[in-house]
């Protein structure tokens, strides 16, 4: 296996799904079984990915491989496109393709009988292609290109059942909300390109490392970081742009699992990982605060939602907030680690909910569910394992990654004094355990909500059950580390993922990221000594605290919903305003509707009015004035100019008429005229 072969495999992995899409979308209407081609494609992609990942992580574990070509060149501008394969890339490739593959399988049964079956698989193909592009890119432009393309596939899949207004609304909302973030990201890209004349990550970073700053100022560097981060705010559903994700649940449930839980929404986190080294401390702080607040906001909303998918959607927002926060506090490796573990257990949860929804004939309200544990043992068990993982209970993958992040927040609080972040982080840990077990209990325990549907419910077929089993297996610690309480001793964090050294000027780094203090520097720079030490001594307190909080959350969920020791309704009534705030998602949709959306529509009406009546009014007014003016001219022309002409004519007529009388034709009269004239002449010219 050489580098060239690896690159070629990566390119094949990238373009295979595009082929799947192109073939399926064009031939799908004619060939009924076309979706098998797409299944074949994704299987091939997965196999190649496993091969590529294996060789990368064994033979080339410490090398970065890449390849690029010039796409556009003119004058001094040269735009290259290319791919970059490092450890993060191949792990992401594996995660994306594995989940995509499982979702394809799952969909075979879940989407059975849909009239646009082939098109559905085609859309999955273009999604996979776009997502792989994001993963493989070595430059910002390609990142943006594929960023938009995943936006497209997300739009198409959310609105897949476009007959439903709520579905097409949700698709539109997702696309437009994302675009807001994308504008920021685009401006960030423009700042970097204007200064470095390249889109390539590594070239830009090496320039920054040399001390060349955008417009010679650290402020612009911070601005570029924050603007690029805006892209992640949109795609990874961070406050204030998170509102699209819960609505995106209108899409088919396997799509929610693939796109809106495991992979696409994590693209924002992935982008931040790629940008990590150019983030200044100010930018990082912004990111940390946004992430921490989002995770808290979403967790509070998840507490009261009654739709199984919505609870999961808010938990996704919340967990994404964790990852984003983790980047902000400098816990790079744990952000990625959590991305991976979350992808598996969240995909499992969503597919589990899909299994439930499928069994219950598209019932997804919690009040209709309940008691399914006995009817659907496989779904229940896998759901339970994933719920334990997301709640951060030991022996699960979620415990490892979450614990790392929480320890990071504690260290961050201690090192920088920003204690709000660990406080939010730990609160969310408590809330997460509570609402996830609430969901589990209300779905699988207790009594059936809808007896009739319950009676018909049954365990799903193997194509749906197999993905659940596999994904829940991947939520167990052993795949990441042999030591169930320390992730760092495992291959994942020890061998594969290491924090890259930041390139921003020393003056814009956090104290704990300064290179002066980094005695631990080796080939793989990790963190300064200070940070390492702090991490070490907060590790156990953080772990104990997080397990404790998770346990309390679970305990309360059981007290509330299983054993009914505490009356939920009574409690709800006593904190009605808080309950309403959570139930109504902090009223953010209402606020956005009232301000931005209605504002824009009103403004468009005003501008259109202005256009029609003022701008065009002036044009038509000018025409009207010209017309009126011309009628006056016509009047002048008819009555004055032409009048004068006619007057002359009339006058000559009158004179003629008068003089005519003189011409009688009688010789006698003429002789009288002659004599009279002669007399007059004689008088006038009388000789002197």
């Amino acid at each position: 296996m050489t580098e060239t072969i690896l690159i070629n495999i990566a390119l094949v992995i990238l373009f295979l799904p595009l082929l799947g899409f192109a073939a399926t979308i064009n031939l799908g209407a004619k060939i009924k079984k076309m979706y098998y081609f797409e299944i074949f494609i994704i299987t091939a992609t997965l196999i190649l990915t496993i091969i590529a990942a294996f060789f990368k992580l064994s033979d080339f574990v410490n090398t970065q491989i890449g390849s690029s070509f010039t796409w556009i060149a003119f004058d001094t501008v040269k735009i290259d496109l290319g791919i970059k394969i490092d450890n993060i890339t191949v792990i992401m490739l594996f995660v994306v393709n594995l989940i995509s593959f499982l979702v394809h399988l799952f969909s075979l049964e879940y989407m059975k009988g849909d009239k646009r079956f082939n098109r559905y698989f085609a859309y999955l193909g273009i999604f996979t292609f776009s997502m792989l592009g994001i993963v493989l890119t070595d430059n910002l432009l390609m990142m943006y290109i594929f960023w938009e393309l995943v936006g497209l596939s997300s739009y198409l899949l959310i609105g897949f059942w476009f007959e439903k207004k709520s579905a097409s609304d949700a698709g539109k909302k997702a696309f437009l909300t994302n675009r807001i973030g994308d504008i920021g990201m685009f401006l960030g890209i423009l700042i970097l390109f204007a200064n470095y004349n390249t889109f390539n990550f590594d070239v830009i970073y090496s320039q920054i490392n040399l001390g060349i700053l955008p417009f010679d100022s650290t402020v612009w560097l911070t601005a570029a970081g924050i603007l690029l981060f805006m892209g992640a705010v949109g795609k990874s559903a961070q406050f204030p742009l998170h509102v699209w994700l819960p609505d995106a649940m209108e899409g088919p449930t396997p799509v929610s699992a693939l796109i809106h839980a495991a992979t696409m929404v994590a693209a924002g986190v992935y982008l931040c990982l790629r940008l990590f080294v150019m983030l200044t401390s100010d930018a990082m702080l912004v990111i940390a605060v946004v992430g921490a607040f989002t995770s808290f906001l979403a967790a509070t909303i998840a507490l009261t939602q009654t739709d199984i998918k919505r609870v999961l959607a808010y938990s996704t927002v919340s967990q994404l907030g964790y990852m984003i926060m983790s980047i902000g506090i400098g816990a790079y490796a744990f952000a990625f680690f959590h991305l991976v573990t979350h992808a598996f257990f969240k995909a499992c949860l969503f597919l589990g909910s899909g299994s439930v929804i499928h069994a219950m004939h598209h019932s997804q309200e919690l009040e209709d569910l309940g008691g399914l544990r006995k009817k659907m043992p496989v779904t229940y068990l896998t759901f339970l394992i994933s719920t334990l993982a997301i709640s951060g209970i030991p022996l699960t993958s979620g415990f490892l990654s979450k614990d790392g992040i929480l320890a990071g927040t504690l260290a961050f609080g201690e090192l920088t004094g920003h204690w709000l972040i660990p406080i939010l982080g730990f609160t969310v840990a408590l809330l997460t355990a509570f609402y996830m077990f609430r969901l589990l209990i209300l779905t699988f325990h207790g009594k059936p909500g809808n007896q009739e549907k319950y009676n018909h419910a049954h365990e799903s077929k193997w194509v749906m059950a197999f993905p659940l089993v596999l994904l829940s297996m991947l939520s167990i610690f052993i795949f990441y580390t042999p030591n169930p309480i320390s992730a760092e001793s495992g291959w994942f964090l020890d061998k594969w993922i290491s924090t890259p050294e930041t390139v921003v000027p020393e003056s814009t780094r956090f104290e704990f990221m300064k290179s002066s203090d980094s005695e631990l520097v080796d080939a793989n720079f990790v963190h300064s000594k200070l940070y390492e030490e702090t991490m070490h001594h907060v590790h156990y307190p953080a772990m104990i605290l997080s397990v404790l909080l998770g346990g309390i959350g679970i305990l309360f969920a059981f007290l509330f919903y299983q054993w009914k020791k505490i009356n939920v309704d009574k409690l709800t009534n006593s904190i009605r305003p808080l309950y309403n705030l959570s139930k109504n998602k902090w009223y953010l949709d209402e606020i956005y509707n009232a301000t931005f959306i209605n504002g824009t529509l009103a403004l468009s009406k005003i501008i259109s009015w202005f256009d029609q009546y003022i701008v065009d009014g002036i044009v038509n007014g000018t025409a009207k004035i010209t017309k009126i003016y011309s009628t006056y001219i016509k009047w002048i022309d008819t009555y004055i100019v032409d009048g004068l002409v006619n007057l002359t004519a009339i006058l000559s007529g009158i004179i003629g008429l008068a003089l005519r009388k003189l011409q009688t034709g009688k010789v006698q009269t003429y002789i009288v005229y002659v004599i009279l004239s002669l007399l007059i002449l004689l008088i006038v010219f009388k000789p002197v």
Partner: protein
Amino acid sequence: MEGFPILSLITFLPIVGMLIILFLPKEQQQAIRLTTLLITFIQIVLSVIMLMNFDYKASGIFDNSTFQFVEKFRWIEIPGISWLGTVKVDYFLGIDGLSMPMVLLTSIVTFIATLSSWNITKAVKGYFSLFLLLNTGMMGVFVALDFFLFYVFWEIMLLPMYFLIGIWGGPRKEYAAIKFFLYTLLGSIFMLLVMIGLYFSAKETLPDGARVFTFNLIELTNIANYSADGILAPMNPNNWRLVAYIALFIGFAIKVPMFPFHTWLPDAHVEAPTPISVILAGVLLKLGTYGMLRISFPIFPDITLQLAWYIGLFGMINIIYGAFCALAQKDFKKMIAYSSVSHMGYVLLGIASLSTTGINGAILQMFNHGTITAMLFLIVGVLYDRSHTRGIDDFGGIAIQMPIYTGFVTVAFFAAIGLPGLSGFISEALVFVGSFGSENIRILAMVSTLGILLGAAYMLWTLQRIFFGELNQKWNELKDLDWREYSMLIPLTLIILFLGIYPSAILDIMNSSVKSLVDFIITNANNFYITSL
């Protein structure tokens, strides 16, 4: 290719076609249509031949010797009229990297528009004759290098367009046609005045050594040709040059159309029959920005540099204002018309950057907008032909009834939104990269990014209202596309896809010309300042 008058051929071939049609009996409708189709197809072949023989390195712009396929001979010559000296006008054709993409675009769009004219049944003979005359006018403008000749072609377009809208248009056709005619004529008058002013300001040297006043666009870019007392001479310290620039600019801006001179466009589009809308949006609007690049920029580099910010400002206004107007429209066709206003704003923004990236992006945007908007108007036409209504809210669920059509619509809409992988993206991106990179208009570029959001908003909202939701039962008999509609939409889709993936196909044509234009403006603008100080 040496000596073969390919430019005259491509320009006047439609006139030949027109003559043939005039001799055909008017009952022979199919023959008339086929003649037109053949003529426009030959034009495509000719422009492809030109492209194959095109020297990508020759820059053109201000350099006489690097124009290609040049044809030049004396057209009008009146020797020795008192102080005027010899009055002469050259028949001077030639192309460079600026005009080559436009010639290509014109031939493609007119071919598609001919196909789209197939269902015109009223006075077929008259229609196609005027259509071909219009074709000559458009082609002529893009290949003329003599201002007088340019002006003649410019005016030739006006007349057929007036009748094509006024006779074959919708309910308010007379109003729209007159508005279009008068508005454009107003612009022409400005242009005429500037043309005469320039004529009396510069002299070219003939081969025999005589110095005569000139309309030659290339000679007019040469500062050495101006006499110090010429009213529009760069070294003449009066403000007439500025006034002339603005007048000429307005003449072109009306065609673009630039706010606040854009209101003829929605009316003309809504009333014009589909193929004429296609031509109008696909080609005619580009004449405005082409005129700026061909005439205003190289002849007035000093003023261009001085006013670049304002050009950018109007570009920004177009982008945002047009988008807001589009968002408010209830008529499908009018919505697309306003989206044109918005998208042409990117062209203005790009050329205002005075950078190679921005201007490359702008010209590419002209080409892409031509194909994308042509497709959008065809799409409107497809639906209007079937339903005889254009109200966006009158539809709903059309995707269920016409899935293939909806597929094409989705491609066109997303191309207009600027989705990567489709052609609109890269041109808009280059415009933004160029204008953001130019310190002068950086702020304008930043504000203009709002257009990306608004563009997506009105497009997706329209897509939703017309195509999604439950099928409005009124439309449950609409048929999906027929072969003729495929033949129009497929080629455009392929072009949009191809240029989205490989934009260099067009960019490479214009690179050297654009570079030379930018260098010329920057160096000469500075020279002029020095001489005027």
